């Protein structure tokens, strides 16, 4: 565990964001209905007190170590490195966490915050079901009732995860409003929260939503980057030259990037879901194919038409299928501190198969996007270039989608 007190930020640090109103440059903020404002302010107050309380982190660390299995290994991907003949590639193995992805990191942290607030029930939104499963897991652990809002379309597409959530004791509410997908599940969770502010905590699944969620989720996910920093120091005695992660809302990427923001020698590369291509209408690349706007409590980049109506995202990976992105990524994008690229469904599908065969690791479709970009660039980089890719989820959940794409009947 490397969640330790941070070293003081240098004067020109960009790690100090957000400001007191939750803004990262022009992004972020708290664009919520007045009914929610007192509650949002209470979440912020509780979180900021917890953040300074060593007892809070002791409990978090203890669970992260013994329940989640942290630290996750940093693995030298020798076969991939030799295959590509360029950069030396490491994988951060967050797919080995309990529940099979990085989502458990912020679920654990947030349920501890909810407990401190005295809230007695948890709600969450989910797209693919990974965040829903992780939320249902921590709710089972803490014996709290859990309601997960999931687009009716996703309920159909992700039956195994729906079953998992139910096994864990959660109630899954299919959302039929709007387009019946992740953004509508988030709308519905917000509506439900407005009606149940007295006893309910909304456990948001990414570095998005109103302040303080982007900051809070980032801080829980920063365990990823902090571990990488320490583990690579042990393995190579220095910082990485580049770090690569996939981006939907941006939680795993933010957790990987944040500890390196002030280390300007480290290239930060976020890989968006390009769907059928960012020049088509079917993608989920909010930074590469979206524009500035306000949704779900934050100002950021969104997929929208010229009238400000939110458009549908598309990705082969349900976990990246969101028409917005966390506000800190929007800011890093504008500052050009991080590079944001995209890869298509087909490239991700190909990377999924290559990684399975090269390393004996079946990745989730989300990090398959990151790996597709590694495949594109690593071969042209010098052999002394150290690249760390976050392998943020395992692929068991995706075998049905992949089989269907490959024309295999299971």
């Amino acid at each position: 565990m490397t969640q330790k007190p941070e070293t003081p930020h240098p004067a020109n640090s960009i790690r100090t964001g957000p400001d007191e109103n939750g803004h990262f440059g022009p992004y972020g903020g708290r664009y919520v209905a007045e009914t929610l404002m007192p509650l949002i302010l209470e979440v912020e107050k509780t979180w900021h007190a917890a953040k300074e309380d060593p007892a809070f982190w002791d409990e978090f660390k203890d669970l992260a170590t013994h329940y989640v299995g942290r630290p996750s290994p940093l693995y030298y991907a020798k076969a991939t490195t030799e295959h590509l003949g360029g950069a030396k590639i490491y994988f951060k193995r967050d797919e080995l966490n309990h529940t099979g992805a990085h989502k458990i990191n912020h679920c654990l942290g947030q349920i501890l915050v909810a407990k401190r607030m005295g809230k007695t029930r948890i709600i969450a939104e989910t797209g693919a079901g990974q965040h829903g499963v992780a939320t249902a897991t921590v709710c089972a652990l803490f014996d709290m009732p859990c309601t997960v809002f999931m687009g009716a379309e996703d309920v159909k597409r992700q039956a195994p995860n729906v079953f998992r959530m139910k096994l864990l004791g959660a109630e899954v509410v299919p959302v039929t409003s709007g387009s019946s997908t992740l953004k509508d599940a988030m709308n519905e969770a917000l509506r439900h929260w407005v009606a149940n502010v007295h006893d309910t905590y909304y456990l948001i699944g990414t570095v998005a939503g109103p302040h303080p969620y982007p900051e809070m989720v980032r801080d829980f996910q920063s365990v990823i980057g902090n571990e990488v920093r320490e583990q690579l120091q042990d393995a190579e005695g220095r910082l990485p030259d580049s770090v690569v992660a996939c981006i939907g809302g941006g939680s795993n990427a933010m957790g990987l990037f944040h500890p390196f923001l002030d280390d300007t020698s480290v290239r930060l590369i976020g890989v968006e879901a390009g769907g059928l291509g960012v020049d088509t209408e079917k993608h989920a690349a909010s930074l590469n194919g979206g524009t500035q706007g306000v949704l779900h409590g934050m100002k950021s980049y969104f997929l929208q038409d010229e009238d400000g109506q939110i458009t549908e995202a598309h990705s082969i990976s349900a976990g990246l299928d969101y028409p917005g992105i966390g506000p800190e990524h929007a800011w890093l994008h504008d500052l050009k501190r991080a590079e944001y690229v995209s890869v298509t469904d087909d490239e991700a599908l190909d990377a999924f198969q290559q990684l399975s065969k090269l390393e004996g690791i079946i990745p989730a479709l989300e990090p398959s996007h990151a790996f597709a970009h590694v495949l594109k660039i690593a071969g042209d980089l010098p052999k002394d270039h150290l690249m760390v890719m976050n392998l943020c989820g395992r692929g068991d959940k995706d075998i049905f989608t992949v089989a269907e794409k490959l024309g295999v009947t299971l």
Partner: protein
Amino acid sequence: MNRIETIFEKLKSEGRKALVTFITAGDPDAAKSASILAALPGSGADIIEIGMPFTDPMADGPAIQAAGLRALEAGANMKQTLKMVQDFRSKNTDTPIVLMGYMNPVLAYGPDAFMKDAAAAGVDGLILVDLPPEEADELAPLAQQNGLHIIRLVTPTTDEARLQTVLNGAGGFLYYVSITGVTGTKSANVDEVGAHIKEIKKTTNLPVVAGFGIKTPEDASAMSAIADGIVVGSAIVEQIGEGADDKAISTQVQALHDALKAA
């Protein structure tokens, strides 16, 4: 003095409470929406709120969500909404119009252009549901420059300390959200709302109008005893969704008006 202040003075002198009616612009289509709008003042609406359609209305219940989607399906956009107000204004110079909606379509239109065009079309006030006072700096000065009131929401969760924040920069009237919930869902508890509004009126001279969860003439009558006006939205929009024409809506609005008058 803007039309909102004028109407509340007039109502006060007549000893009446304001009937505020809500419809979504362009629902079910531009032409029908315009004729429903045109008939509202004659049926007893004192102030008209017009919803600006948005794909993701997070503070609205099923009825107003559906209204927005019907309008968008029929091709609604912000230009058309402002045009509808402009056409209405060419025949009616008295009834205040308040646009209600979400930030994103306003940002997409361009905040400066939006405020100018809305004022030119004859809009009197704005309710932006997802714009709390903390984020208002981007839009409030532009609204003010163009003579548009920013109408703030007060809710059952707004305590005394927060009320000061909400009142700072509030104009026109205060919109009291009478339930903790989204539009058109639960029914309001008149006693609780009444007690809170009484507290609020100690700190502001703005008229307080109650909305969310007021459906029937009976609801309207009960709520009018404790507020300066009431808003009926989902109940009207539901009728429109079921295919009611302007005559049917007029009858519904007239019944609400009569109930308020008799209260």
